[in-house]
């Protein structure tokens, strides 16, 4: 019945009630839609890094005085558990000649399996016997085609394949590089030691165990290598996006704040207008607590209706923002969206109830005799 009373009071001032609800709808929509968009944005970015989350990069410990990783370490790591694949890598900067042009670029040594695992060959093949595979940007810049000849340190290589352009990577960047076999690399640069090892773990849970093992078996006496896990980079990206999302939410929160103020305003007006009624109710046996409840119900009704409508509309809001900014709304139907909506609805309700609390409290504190005299 208290609920019914509250409902009818709201119906008495329909326009005012509707305006207050619209305020909440907009606030909740802003929060939920931006939440949905933020999650979509994060996912879109993280998606590009998803397949490298299980990757670890082992580099020489430069701070420990090491500039390369020697063969014994590589074979130790190759024998370690937890790993799905181990790709030792050498690299060196070198002048490269093509016909009458020359450029300075990075030369990597990798085997064919590694190329297949790490990259995608766009044109040609990944054959490395006396031939090389080159990165897309380099090919484009130097106008190199499959079958062309490049010269590295007076040795001529046939271009066997050209790689597809790679996005941002943390391990190696092949876009401007040339990949040759280890045999050729050793011959050209006379370099036995490796510059890095790219390894993939079986499962993400094993990363810590693998790191511990490296510390124990390789770094026990002297810090020779560093293990960089890409997962932690992903975590940092996620963290950064979470912060951006939080900031966006805070901006959206302002609109909810405004809605809260408008509820506060209309309910204060309502309290004032109904002072005498409150007095009457107090006279016929309503306690302070009852008055508080009736007014809080009014705020709650505004909050529930506004939040539910806002939550529902935010699906469309999120859809259009994602479509406009991310050019795709494929992340719309996910748990994160549901979470964003629930979050918006929750904040809508909280705002309504908090805003309603002061007027309700004020109404409940009215002295019955004063309230009855009020005209």
């Amino acid at each position: 019945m208290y609920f019914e009373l509250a409902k009818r009071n709201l119906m008495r001032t329909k326009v005012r009630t509707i305006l207050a609800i619209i305020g909440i709808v907009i606030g909740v929509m802003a929060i939920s839609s931006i939440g949905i968009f933020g999650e979509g944005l994060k996912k879109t970015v993280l998606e590009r890094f998803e397949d490298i989350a299980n990757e670890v990069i082992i580099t020489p410990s430069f701070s420990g005085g090491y500039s390369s990783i020697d063969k014994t370490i590589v074979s130790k790591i190759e024998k370690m558990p937890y790993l799905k694949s181990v790709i030792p890598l050498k690299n060196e900067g070198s002048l490269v000649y093509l016909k009458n042009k020359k450029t300075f670029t990075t030369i990597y040594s990798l085997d064919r399996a590694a190329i297949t695992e790490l990259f995608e060959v766009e044109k040609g093949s990944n054959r490395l016997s006396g031939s090389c595979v080159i990165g897309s940007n380099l090919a484009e810049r130097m106008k190199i085609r499959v079958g062309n000849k490049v010269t590295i340190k007076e040795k001529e290589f046939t271009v066997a394949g050209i790689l597809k352009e790679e996005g941002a990577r943390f391990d190696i960047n092949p876009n401007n590089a040339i990949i040759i076999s280890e045999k050729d690399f050793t011959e050209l640069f006379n370099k036995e030691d490796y510059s890095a090892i790219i390894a993939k773990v079986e499962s993400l849970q094993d990363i810590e165990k693998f790191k511990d093992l490296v510390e124990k078996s390789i770094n026990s006496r002297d810090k020779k290598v560093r293990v960089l896990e890409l997962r932690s980079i992903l975590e940092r990206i996620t963290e950064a996006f979470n912060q951006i999302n939080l900031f966006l939410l805070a901006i959206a929160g302002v609109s909810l704040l405004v809605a809260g103020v408008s509820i506060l305003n209309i309910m204060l007006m309502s309290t004032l207008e109904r002072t005498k009624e409150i007095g009457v109710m107090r006279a016929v046996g309503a306690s302070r607590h009852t008055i508080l409840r009736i007014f809080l119900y009014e705020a709650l009704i505004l909050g529930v209706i506004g939040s539910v409508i806002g939550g529902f509309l935010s699906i469309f809001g999120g859809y259009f923002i994602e479509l406009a900014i991310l050019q795709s709304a494929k992340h719309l139907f996910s748990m994160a969206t549901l979470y964003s909506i629930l979050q918006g609805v929750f904040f809508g309700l909280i705002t309504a109830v908090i805003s309603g609390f002061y007027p309700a409290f004020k109404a409940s504190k009215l002295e019955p005799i004063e309230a009855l005299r009020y005209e």
Partner: protein
Amino acid sequence: MHAVVELQEVYKIYTLGVQKVIALNGVSLKVEEGEFIAIMGPSGSGKSTLLNMIGCLDKPTKGRVLIAGNDTSKLNDDELTRLRRDTIGFIFQQYNLIPTLTALENVELPMIFRGLNRNEREKRANELLEKVGLEREINRKPTELSGGQQQRVAIARALANNPTILLCDEPTGNLDTKSGELIMEILTNLNKEGVTVIVVTHDPAVSEFAQRIVKIRDGKILDKRGD
């Protein structure tokens, strides 16, 4: 018979700015159970203050007010609310019905505050509205009722929780003679059923229904006819 209302040397002093207004100046009054009394006096005499005191809506500055044996000065807000709800029925000059509620719901209201269930409430509210002759108007809102009808709904509401005392503040003040007479008739019948009725009025026609008239002027009781 025992006193359901007892005022002992009650003072009510308001401070308006620097000026002190003495609304009640040492009022002592006893009302026995089942009495019908009229409190009369000109405006500003303190009669409404006296009624509010009895109705536990106001607390005395000095002195004691005992309602059904309870010293109101010793009760907290919740206890006073309960006392009002269960012991006292209010009838106001302005009827003071809740405009969003139907006649039936208005009568149910005090029972809601008391925590009665829906069936009990509706049954009693129907009975009470029938008693005041409004069985056909139960679903009307106050604005759809005449002044006399509204006041009868208010009486039904005042009776909802079976009060010992009915407090009426100029109950016929806004009504035409005929409606006013009907209201007074209902009040007289209720008094015959054992309800203590206290009416504040300055209308001699109203006070005629009372067994006893208490005259008040400048916050003091002048004489007590029938004491």
